[in-house]
């Protein structure tokens, strides 16, 4: 319990720091912060509306601290004001449309990358010295070191544009109405194949490497020798004795992996014109819709923090020692 509370406290502080960053950013820019924030709004919002939005962002009279409190309040009440790009739609409504798609891609992509990484990492560590174990890590590292932009562009070009195996854009057939029926789900799955491939390609190496390094360390421990001496089968040692202990460091590195996945996600969505957060982020930047840009940053941070918390809970479940403290 103490472990969970301390983690929650940490994430709360991290979230506050992210809010403060968002609050300070327009104020650190040269010139009037309101001008910086609403540079793209000229002509789209009339002055009285700008004043209303300004108040919401805490650009009111008062000390910096009072402005800050007002901003924090508007974040926690999810009162983020209208988007400039898609005026008069609320920023939160725009996020509501786009975030589920990103959540779907990142969730499925990261989970399958972790799964595959654990399997391959275990095999590579356990069968050290075979040609597969010496060839696989460098190859997968090479593939994953390619920037997500590049992987996405190459996959897009060969499998989408040249071979025409998969669609080039959108998350589903645009002529269909979103519904929970079989044809629509099939269309979504069909459109998700290429983006998911890129996410898995980009993330796989990290999990394989972490798992392999952890496994190699565990394999040197006495418990393995003991298990071998008992005459247990090789697969039983590999799965029940070695992997279970080796999974712990993998769970800790989820933080980094999620950050990378989200970052790669932005490019993947742009290349495949997928209607998620990343695509919206680029549109917002080009339209200088800074309120939307900041809101997207916040939701990404929240998403990564929650992902980390889930990883912490998994850690707790895997490592009984933590439960006592």
């Amino acid at each position, binding site marked *: 319990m103490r472990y969970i509370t301390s983690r929650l406290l940490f994430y709360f502080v991290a979230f506050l720091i992210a809010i403060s960053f968002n609050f300070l950013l327009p104020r650190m820019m040269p010139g009037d912060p309101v001008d910086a924030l609403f540079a793209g709004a000229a002509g789209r919002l009339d002055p009285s509306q700008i004043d209303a939005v300004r108040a919401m962002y805490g650009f009111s009279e008062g000390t910096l601290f009072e402005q800050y409190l007002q901003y924090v309040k508007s974040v926690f009440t999810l009162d983020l004001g209208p988007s400039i790009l898609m005026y008069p739609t609320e920023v939160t409504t725009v996020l509501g449309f786009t975030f589920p798609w990103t959540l779907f891609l990142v969730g499925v992509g990261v989970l399958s990358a972790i799964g595959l990484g654990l399997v391959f990492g275990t095999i590579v560590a356990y069968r*050290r*010295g075979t040609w597969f174990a010496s060839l696989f890590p460098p190859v997968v590292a*090479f593939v994953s070191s390619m920037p997500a932009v*590049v992987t996405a562009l190459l996959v897009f070009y060969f499998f989408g544009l040249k071979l025409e195996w998969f669609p080039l854009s959108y998350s589903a057939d645009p002529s269909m109405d979103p519904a929970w029926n079989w044809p629509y789900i099939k269309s979504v799955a069909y459109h998700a194949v290429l983006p998911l491939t890129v996410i898995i390609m980009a993330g796989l190496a990290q999990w394989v490497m972490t798992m392999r390094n952890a496994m190699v360390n565990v394999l040197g421990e006495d418990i393995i020798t003991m298990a071998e001496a008992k005459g247990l089968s090789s697969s039983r040692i590999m799965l029940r004795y070695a992997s279970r202990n080796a999974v712990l460091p993998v769970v800790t590195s989820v933080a980094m992996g999620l950050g990378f996945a*989200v970052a790669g996600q932005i490019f993947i969505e742009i290349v495949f014109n997928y209607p998620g957060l990343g695509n919206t982020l680029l549109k917002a930047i080009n339209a200088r819709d800074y309120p939307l840009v900041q809101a997207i940053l916040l939701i990404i941070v929240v998403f990564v923090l929650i992902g980390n918390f889930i990883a912490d809970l998994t850690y707790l479940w895997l490592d009984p020692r933590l439960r006592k403290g």
Partner: protein
Amino acid sequence: MTPIANPVLAPSPWQSFRFRCANGLKRTSGFFLTNPPALIGGGIMIIVVLACLLAPMLTDYDPNRRVARPHVAPNAEHVFGTTRQGRDVFAQVLYGGRTSLTVAFVAGTVATVLSIMIGITAGYFGGRIDQWLNFVMNVVLVFPQLPLLIVLAAFLGQVGPPVIALLIGITSWPWGARVIRSQTMAIRQKEFVLAAECMGESKLRILLIEILPNLTAIAAGSFVGVMMYALINAAGLEFLGLGDPTAVTWGTMLYWAQSAAALYTGGWWEMIVPAVTIAVVGGAMALVNIAIDQVSNPKLKAGAHLRRWRKLNKAIQAKRQKR
């Protein structure tokens, strides 16, 4: 009168420095020659860096000037074809590589210096300093870095390569710092550090002369890692149009290719050439990093020995069967 070297006395700082350099050079070259990933990765890096440095000798074209008709397919005159603006892609790759690789190098250096300073301080002094530094490290680690960079760059507006290098360098120290911190904590328990403390050496000397040399492999690993990461992220930022579009870099090449819809209009070389270049250089850095990993964790290298043992074992078994 020249002082007579006394073998009993400790070598002068200069002597030990020279010895360390020579020893380090020998070990570094040995590391590259005996390690296939390092050899391939290092080889690619050297070739690319040389090609970029010798750009004026390899191509006559100015990367910023229209030299042919738009989207000329690769031919003898324009090895990688031309862009939508009629610029030579090969010249752009070479000159752009200078900027892109410099950005990666500067970011790597800034991040490594920061991570060594912060990691060593946290690991050696411990206590409250460590708690605070560790907290800052964890907070920075938990934030998704690229979205943060994108928002920063969006507010700053069309950041040039030097600003990109600094932004990435300043935000990517925590990974290195965390590893260096834990390694420092392990080293500071060793006898030679205790001995130096008992002799009353200054803290600075202990940190720089006694502890730092033991962190070389880890620092090198984090340096290459950040370089790879900076290359990728700088290209990503520029691809989004957040960089300075007038600077020629691998990232802005991607940006121009994307805005010219090069893939759709059949000018694939404008997009694929810089993309593959970034992929190959990033991959080369990853290979070097794998090799450095094996140095800092020798257990990973056991594979080669196991393979030799299996071969021998097979030969022995075969001989026995014959009898």
